[in-house]
């Protein structure tokens, strides 16, 4: 059993670790091929797991191959949402993230049924087949612009891009070459750093309450099935929370201040955890599960939306790769540390209090950081408006959708003469 837990634990870093690899691939080849390869890898991993005869093989197949495939699915899927949508991007993100709780709640009884009908070997095979459906999702990811059309008549902006690029020196340093594939210069991006640090703190205490919800309920004297039902309640609320929060985040009021919204969502979740020890009986635990589902859903739905908002769709694929690889440390460390805390103190409530405190701390950090960031951005924008007035502006740049707020973009984007969608994202 411990070995099994080890396998599953090792699978997680393989899901987020190869993030940079898939970022590089997405940057080079686009989303669609990567997702389809990912789907094939997942299926291959699961099917070969069904033929494995010992634990090591299981680790290699399920942990490594399947994890790699899943990573290849995650990155491009997130990236492509940013590429397809702009006006309704928060809603799109919310809907896209809503897929996980749907499957979380349906897969548990489905797995039980598969296991009872086909045994574990057959179950792995069939689950591998189901994962092959990722290829269908990949097929739907039409490349945003077919390569041929860049040569065809385009609007002014792109031409200017090409022409201005030609003016630059062709020689690129090593660092720039690396940055072409994976944008390490993101580490100089203020918003990105705030996001990353806040998230690292948050993920330390984010997943442990989910994992320990059922054991906590059992510890309170609730029977197994009701305890498992709590998780289903949470997943169910989560399912509806994510798209609705996406809708809210898309509104005119919230979208300009979506970073604050994210911080508040994190704070809500943290407060939920802090109040959890007050729940003594089953009904109050159900209430807690409902609120937790709300909090978890709202955080997850705007999690990547805020990153897109900060760095823009262009750099998003590298950003998400870097973010996931850094975040994989607290995600891995959090639950075992929480478990250790439970073992030491003998009670679950201290763990919940600790997790709640960590998450609230992260939210405060994000709030303050983003407040500063917004101020600085506003200042930079004002500076840029002055400098911009002396330059010609392309018509495309000004045609912004009304939802986009007026806060300034990053300095660099205004300096350049190219039209780039990323500048618009960083405007917010």
């Amino acid at each position, binding site marked *: 059993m411990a070995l099994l837990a080890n396998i599953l634990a090792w699978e997680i870093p393989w899901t987020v670790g190869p993030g940079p690899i898939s970022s590089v691939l997405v940057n080079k080849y686009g989303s669609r091929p990567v997702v389809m390869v990912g789907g094939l890898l997942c299926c291959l991993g699961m099917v070969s797991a069904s033929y494995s005869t010992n634990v090591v093989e299981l680790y290699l197949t399920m942990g490594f191959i399947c994890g790699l495939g899943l990573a290849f699915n995650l990155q491009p899927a997130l990236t492509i949402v940013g590429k397809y949508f702009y006006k309704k991007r928060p809603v799109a993100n919310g809907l896209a993230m809503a897929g996980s709780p749907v499957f979380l709640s349906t897969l548990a009884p489905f797995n039980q049924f598969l296991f*009872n009908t086909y045994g574990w070997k057959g179950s792995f*095979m069939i689950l591998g087949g189901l994962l092959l459906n990722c290829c269908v999702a990949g*097929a739907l990811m039409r490349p945003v*612009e077919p390569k041929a059309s860049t040569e065809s008549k385009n609007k002014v902006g*792109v031409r200017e891009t090409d022409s201005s690029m030609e003016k630059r020196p062709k020689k690129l340093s090593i660092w720039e070459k690396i940055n072409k594939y994976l944008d390490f*210069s993101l580490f100089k991006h203020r918003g990105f750093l705030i996001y990353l640090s806040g998230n690292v703190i948050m993920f330390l205490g984010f997943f442990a309450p989910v994992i320990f919800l059922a054991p906590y309920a059992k510890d309170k004297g609730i029977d197994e099935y009701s305890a498992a039902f709590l998780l289903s309640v949470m997943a169910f609320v989560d399912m509806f929370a994510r798209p609705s929060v996406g809708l809210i985040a898309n509104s005119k009021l919230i979208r300009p201040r979506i970073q604050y919204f994210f911080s508040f969502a994190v704070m809500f979740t943290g407060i939920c955890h802090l109040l959890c020890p007050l729940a003594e009986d089953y009904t109050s635990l159900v209430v807690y599960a409902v609120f937790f589902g709300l909090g978890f859903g709202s955080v997850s739905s705007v999690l990547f939306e805020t990153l897109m908002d900060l760095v823009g769709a262009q750099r998003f694929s590298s950003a998400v790769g870097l973010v996931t690889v850094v975040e994989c440390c607290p995600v891995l460390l959090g639950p075992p540390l929480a478990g250790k805390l439970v073992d030491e103190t003998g009670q679950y409530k201290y763990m919940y209090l600790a997790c709640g405190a960590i998450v609230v701390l992260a939210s405060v950090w994000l709030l303050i950081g983003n407040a500063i960031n917004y101020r600085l951005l506003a200042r930079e924008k004002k500076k840029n408006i002055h400098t911009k007035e002396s330059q010609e502006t392309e018509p495309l740049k000004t045609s912004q959708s009304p939802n986009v707020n007026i806060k300034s973009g990053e300095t660099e984007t205004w300096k350049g003469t*190219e039209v*780039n969608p*990323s500048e618009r994202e960083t405007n917010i």
Partner: protein
Amino acid sequence: MRALQGLPGPRAPSLPLLLLCFLAAVRRSVEHGLSTAAPFTSLPVQEEITMTKYSNLSLESHNISVTAAPFTSLPVQEEITTTKYSNLSLESHNISMTAMPMKENNKGNQICVDRGIMLQRNVTLEHSNMTVEKNITLERPSNVELTCQFTTSGDLNSVNVTWKKGDTLLEDNYLVNATGSILYTQYRVTVIDSKQMGSYSCFFGEKKQQKGTFNLKVPEINGKNKPLITYVGDSVVLMCKCQDCLPLNWTWYSVNGSVQVPIGVPVNDKYVISGKHANETSLKIMQLSEDDQGTYWCHAIFELGESEGHVELVVLSYLVPLKAFGAIVAEVVLLVTIILLFEMYTQKKKKPSDDGKEFEQGEELKLDDSNGIENSGPRHRKNESVGQ
């Protein structure tokens, strides 16, 4: 030990109802008996079950107390106290008192009490059965002492006491003792082999009989409730275990039709019977084939009898999940083909007039959003970035 003391006899002519009792002879147990309790008052029944256990070889004594109490049909209250002590315990017996007998006891608690009036007695006849049961698990030969207590406010001497094993009336080995308002009866039996196992019942009274039952059983074996699913060519381990017992021997049987066929009798490579501890056994079957499907029984042999558990084995061929997998793969391939074909078709349509249509969604957004080509752009721009 034999003692017959204070047998209730038709001593009191003042209790006309008691004349209905006739002395213990062969008596068919009639549970819907006539009332034999004291006439005037209707006696509510109260029960106590006490169990004491001590062993020299190993002596176990179990008590059931059956009480008749006055007035209305009160639900019977039961107390169960267990005290265990051993002087020369050679082994530890766990008398597993499962919830089941408790519930059964509660069932028997619905005593419809005799209202004491002759007229009404006939009415309440059908409710007058009263059964208390206790399950006792025995593994090894022991001396067993079974005690029933009967409390009544009427005349104890008029209450008839009998013991039965199954349906057979027992003539000796029991004593009856009256103390105050409690009537004790104790039956001792030395259990050596399976012949002495079974149900022992004590009966109080004649017509309206209160009955207490002790069920002597061998320990139960747990197999598996859900079928084990395996595939052709695999090997599987079937396990049976019992909670705290040490059987003398374990044997495995497979079912052929309705006949149990022993396994492993001609020792071959296919079946390996082993067991890490004495209270469990495992049967390892290699090279499964579809013929091996079915139910397997494990028998635990005790000195006092046999007990069995079962495990169901299902052997599937690889084709079974493969069909489901193939169906899913076919569906995926179909969908991907449809999507790609549709895309090619719409692109062909778009080609002649592709200027305006390229900027459908968030137009400026898509401009140089193509995945690989313009990436050098932001990188260059970064070089000029002032910093943040």
